[in-house]
């Protein structure tokens, strides 16, 4: 966040204390990114979110006390959070208009409360806390982030280690890393934005003007009559606009007389070119406003304004146009490059693996020693493989690669010969090799870095890479260098690695890590000695101590592997090893930390199944971690996953479906699956009913995807519902859970409810209510509940004794099942003919439901309240519930701050008032006063339910008195003005009751007085 803020954000040029963020699209997207980051911080990094800031972030907020609900102490206009730090200070404090926040968790909550004002809050926060990181992490840390950011984060970690690693520091380091990731992500996005934007600079404008001036005059033959600047004075920065307009981005103003239309007054600004209100010369106050669309360049604007110009320019040598557009492009590129380098300086401590592969030399035809041949063969194979990997790049690029491979063919007589050569090269002794000054071996200095290949975006850069490779032979003259000493040292180490026991392994690994494994000579040594295999073997053994260290090396090494067929084998082994490691959470973190995700993303593009299976396997294993899911989505892996759904390999399909299953919790991912047309292949996987694992993964993916209604509509087109219903019987539980989950989502659409019945799905669903599997039960009750809202479905459910089964699930120990069953019960009770009687016939049912009111789970409580509300519509039931003490139980819950619970609780109270002396009992149990407080809630449903409950309660005089004391009248009068008729009526009724009581009281007083 640091760098994006200091370098990328555009601030107004006022004194720094009061600087505002300029409202540009770039800043908007920056703010949105930050908002997104902060909003999801609490769910993504719960532990870090608890970290207490060094200093509070403070700003003037538009939020007021009444916006805060749960978990806050509200007194007058001040608000304090319940959450406190170790010294008891609240983590959030509001004394209008300033708010103080001291943890991410509170920050996330606050943004959540801000609803549509989120962006404004983030903006205010950033504007008033110019150095948020200093406040969050403390001065020393934050300066690392901004100034020493080019250092690897690891060095900071190391340093903290030396300082003694406390828990707090650990969290800080984690936060620090998160900020860095965040920074990188934001810059990526901004870069993308910029590259799409047109941005002019004075030079480009000047050039264009100069070119056009050449074609001015000359009567009808000229393009224009005249073209001039409003001001002859040019500032040193090339601008001609007055200073105060330069701040707005204005570069200069032009007055152009076209041949056919009236004079045009034009503003050239960094944002583009447009007509203004008519600035004739410098110093005029008005006339700066924009009066036309914004155009990319002068020529486009003139073309649209002057038909004569448009006609002429097409005839004229198009050089003008070309020239101008070309200029502009350069400007853009320059800007991009700037950003690139800024970012690279910050984030790339050493050349990445992608680079080193492109730093190889081409074959040299002049020399054909055995060494040379070997080298070029390797190169040939490499370029072939690379072409495969960069499938996304243009076909032209592919063909150029092929051409090169063909060139190599002359040397590449057969595979056998190739191997021989390798063998020979290997068996050569040290002395021989150092004596033969064979060219072709690349020294370390030749490692090229380019601004193009960045670890963040390996795919998009593949074309740059290839271009560079093509030019390589011309740029680098032959070098006659020996193998560097690193080569021999690594070779020696690998030998020890093979021969030594675990103590030796530790030393060799440590020594190996001290080498720059990205360096070409080191990579060659590793390839030639088969070190990768040794390392992978080690991973398979029980050397847990070294595992993390090994994982550090592996991704580094694996990036160099797809260079030869033999090495692809090794890369596959590598992927397999990663897969087997990926099962432990600790290793998942290690893989991520070692940069394994982009690598996996790259390998995912491979066409080879034996490579894809372990890669996708690893991905789906790791997708259980939230961070991976985000990466899988943002690195564009969903597309590849969807593509491989249509592969002909069951295992691969299964892993892909499984990965989608895990990732589709996220809405964007669901949309992406639809966008890449992944829904149909998923449905077609349902036909493979014999492969239960595949079926479970496919149904799981369908379930999660169907959470988006747009996807359900698509699924209907592919007739997924019918197949899903047919899968309700004779399937293992893993499949059933997903199938039923999907049906529950499908049944949210009314038409599907009937469809499920028509396909005969109700009976198996009800049957599943007796399953002992809790996960399944949660889904089944949800599906049954959704189906029960259809009357015809309800008849069948009732016949099958479904209501009783749902009731009995309230006894299940799992809170999820309890609440899910209670929701289903609501739907059943509402739609069944004689639900009241059925309920009474169940022994112990009412007792159970009242008992559940003492649950600690808010979701259970809300669902039970909703159920009570429905059941109590039957008067006899209400009487029984009252006997079991439903009134005090409900009254006890009234102090809750959970809006969802409040809504259903108020409903239940309103309903329970209908019997006997319950109104008075609620008042005695102290339920009235807290209910009045609910009126402050912003939630419409809570207001309405509360007003109804208060109306019912107000029929008891004592309750009226309590309400009046708690100042109920004012909010009620406010609500009488609401658009919601029910709310109006309830509020008015309540006020009426209070008024009646008052009148009665006065009459009584008068009466006594008279006597």
């Amino acid at each position, binding site marked *: 966040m640091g760098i994006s803020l200091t370098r990328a954000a555009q601030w107004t040029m006022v004194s720094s204390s009061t600087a505002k963020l300029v409202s540009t699209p770039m800043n908007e997207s920056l703010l949105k990114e930050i908002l997104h980051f902060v909003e999801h911080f609490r769910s993504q990094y719960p532990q870090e979110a608890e970290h207490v800031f060094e200093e509070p972030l403070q700003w003037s907020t538009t939020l007021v006390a009444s916006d805060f609900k749960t978990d806050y102490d509200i007194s007058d206009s001040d608000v304090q959070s319940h959450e406190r730090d170790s010294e008891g200070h609240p983590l959030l404090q509001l004394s209008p208009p300033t708010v103080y926040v001291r943890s991410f968790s509170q920050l996330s909550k606050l943004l959540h409360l801000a609803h549509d004002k989120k962006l404004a809050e983030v903006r205010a926060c950033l504007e008033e806390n110019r150095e948020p990181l200093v406040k969050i992490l403390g001065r020393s840390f934050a300066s690392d982030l901004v100034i020493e950011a080019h250092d690897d984060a690891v060095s900071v970690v*190391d340093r903290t*280690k*030396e300082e003694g690693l406390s828990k707090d520091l650990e969290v800080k380091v984690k936060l620090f890393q998160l900020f860095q990731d965040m920074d990188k992500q934001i810059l990526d996005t901004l870069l993308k934005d910029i590259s799409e934007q047109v941005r002019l600079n004075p030079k480009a404008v000047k050039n264009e003007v100069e070119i056009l001036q050449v074609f001015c005059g000359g009567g009808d033959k000229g393009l224009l009559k005249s073209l001039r600047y409003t001001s002859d004075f040019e500032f040193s920065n090339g601008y001609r606009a007055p200073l105060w307009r330069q701040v707005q981005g204005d570069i200069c103003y032009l007055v152009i007389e076209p041949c056919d239309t009236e004079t045009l007054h034009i503003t050239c600004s960094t944002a583009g070119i447009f007509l203004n209100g008519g600035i004739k010369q410098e110093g005029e106050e008005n006339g700066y406003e924009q009066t036309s669309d914004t155009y990319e360049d002068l020529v486009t604007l003139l073309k649209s304004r002057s038909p004569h110009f448009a006609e002429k320019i097409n005839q004229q040598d198009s050089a003008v146009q070309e020239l101008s557009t070309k200029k502009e492009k350069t400007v853009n590129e320059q800007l991009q490059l700037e950003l690139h380098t800024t970012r690279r300086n910050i984030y790339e401590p050493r050349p990445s693996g992608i680079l080193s592969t492109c730093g190889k030399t081409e074959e040299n035809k002049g020399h054909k020693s055995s060494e040379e041949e070997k080298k070029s063969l390797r190169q040939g194979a490499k370029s072939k493989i690379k072409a495969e990997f960069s499938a996304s790049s243009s076909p032209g690029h592919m063909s150029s690669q092929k051409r090169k491979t063909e060139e190599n063919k002359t040397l590449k007589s057969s595979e056998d010969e190739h191997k021989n050569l390798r063998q020979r090269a290997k068996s050569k002794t040290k002395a021989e090799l150092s004596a033969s000054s064979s060219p072709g071996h690349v020294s370390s200095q030749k490692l090229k870095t380019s601004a193009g290949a960045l670890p963040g975006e390996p795919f998009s850069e593949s074309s740059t890479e290839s271009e560079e490779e093509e030019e390589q032979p011309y740029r680098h003259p032959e070098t006659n260098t020996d193998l560097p000493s690193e080569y021999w040292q690594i070779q*020696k*180490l690998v*030998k*020890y690695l093979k*021969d*030594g*026991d*675990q*103590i*030796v392994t*530790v*030393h*060799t*690994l*440590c*020594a190996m890590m*001290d080498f720059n494994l990205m360096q070409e000579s080191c990579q060659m040594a590793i390839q030639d000695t088969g070190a990768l295999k040794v390392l992978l073997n080690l991973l398979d053994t*029980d050397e*847990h*101590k*070294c595992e993390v*260290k090994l994982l550090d090396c592996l991704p580094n090494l694996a990036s160099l592997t797809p260079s030869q067929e033999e090495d692809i084998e090794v890369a596959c082994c590598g992927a397999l090893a990663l897969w087997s490691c990926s099962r432990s959470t600790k290793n998942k973190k290690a893989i991520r930390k070692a940069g394994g995700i982009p690598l996996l993303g790259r390998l995912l593009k491979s066409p080879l199944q034996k490579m894809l299976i372990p890669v996708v396997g690893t991905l789906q294993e790791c997708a259980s971690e939230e961070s991976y899911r985000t990466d899988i989505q943002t690195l564009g892996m969903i597309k590849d996953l969807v593509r491989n759904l249509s592969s002909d390999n069951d295992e691969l399909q299964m892993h892909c479906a499984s990965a989608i299953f895990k990732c589709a919790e996220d809405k964007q991912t669901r949309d992406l699956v639809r966008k890449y047309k992944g829904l149909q292949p998923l449905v077609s996987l349902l036909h493979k009913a014999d492969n239960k694992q595949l079926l479970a993964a496919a149904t799981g993916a369908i379930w999660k995807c169907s959470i988006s209604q747009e996807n359900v509509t698509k699924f209907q087109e592919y007739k997924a519902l019918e197949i899903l219903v047919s899968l309700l019987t004779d399937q293992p539980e893993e499949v059933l859970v997903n199938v039923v989950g999907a049906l529950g989502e499908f049944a949210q659409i009314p038409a599907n409810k009937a469809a499920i019945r028509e396909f005969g799905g109700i009976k198996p669903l009800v049957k599943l209510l007796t399953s002992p599997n809790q996960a399944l039960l949660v889904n089944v009750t949800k599906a049954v509940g959704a189906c029960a809202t259809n009357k015809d479905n309800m008849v069948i459910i009732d016949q099958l004794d479904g209501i009783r089964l749902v009731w009995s699930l309230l006894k299940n120990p799992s809170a999820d099942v309890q609440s899910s069953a209670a929701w289903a019960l609501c739907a059943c009770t509402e739609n069944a003919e004689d639900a009241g009687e059925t309920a009474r016939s169940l022994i112990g049912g009412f007792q159970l439901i009242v008992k559940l009111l003492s649950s600690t789970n808010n979701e259970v409580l809300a669902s039970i309240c909703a159920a009570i509300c429905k059941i109590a519509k039957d008067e006899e039931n209400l009487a029984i519930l009252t006997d079991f003490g439903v009134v005090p139980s409900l009254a006890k819950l009234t102090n809750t701050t959970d809006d969802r619970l409040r809504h259903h609780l108020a409903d239940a109270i309103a309903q329970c008032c209908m019997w006997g002396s319950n109104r008075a009992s609620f008042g005695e149990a102290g339920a009235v006063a807290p209910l009045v407080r609910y009126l402050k809630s912003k939630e419409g449903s809570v207001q309405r339910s509360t007003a109804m409950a208060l109306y019912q309660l107000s029929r008891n005089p004592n309750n009226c008195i309590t309400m009046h004391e708690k100042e109920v009248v004012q909010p009620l009068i406010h609500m009488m003005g609401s658009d919601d008729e029910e709310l109006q009526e309830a509020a008015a009724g309540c006020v009426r009751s209070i008024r009646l009581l008052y009148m009665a009281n006065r009459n009584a007083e008068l009466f006594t007085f008279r006597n």
Partner: protein
Amino acid sequence: MNKRTTQTLAENISKQVEHFSKKEVECLIREFNVLMAEQNNSGRAVHGLDRGKFISTLHSIFGLTDDRMTGRVFRTFDKDNDSVVSMKEWIDGLSVFLRGTLDEKIKYCFTVYDLNGDNAISREEMLHMLKGRLIRQPNEEDPDEGIKDLVEIILKKMDYDHDGKLSFEDFEKAVKDENLLLEAFGTCLPDFRVICNEKLLSSLNFPIKNSQSYSLLFLFFQRIEMFEGRVFQEQMEQ
């Protein structure tokens, strides 16, 4: 030793030893007594575990099998050099062995590796400890060439003051830099996977902090069970 003396003893020792509670010390004392009883004293009155018994204990309970190391571990435990590990030494040693902080462990490992006790690990000492850890290639002239080379590699990495040997400061800095180097010259700390059966432990509702307390808990669990079994048996007989 009856229950009360054990308790008073445990109370005393637990005040002097870090990382163990009184209850845990009590269990360790019992464990010690069990081991003492198993030891063949051939009539002599000894006040501690002798070398043989101690090493076989390291072998059976803690999974330490490297003979070169177990001997050194015995020497390190036996602080007063009387050739037996007394009860106090036993508990003292185990506190580092099982629950030591990184600093304590660095000190402990260094003492184990410093064969002649001159506060430095010399080339010769390293050579001695690493000998035989590389499979010897038949065609090599000097059988120890590889090891000698390895020692140089190690010195290059760990000998910060370039005096040709590892002082305690060198060792400490290297280990803090790379924790894997803690047991750089041989395994001398318990291998927890051998004794730690996580599944069994997860059935216990102890607030377990790290894998090391796991092992000890397991140890206790096993012993306490045995012990309790014995006690209850006695009660029933009465």
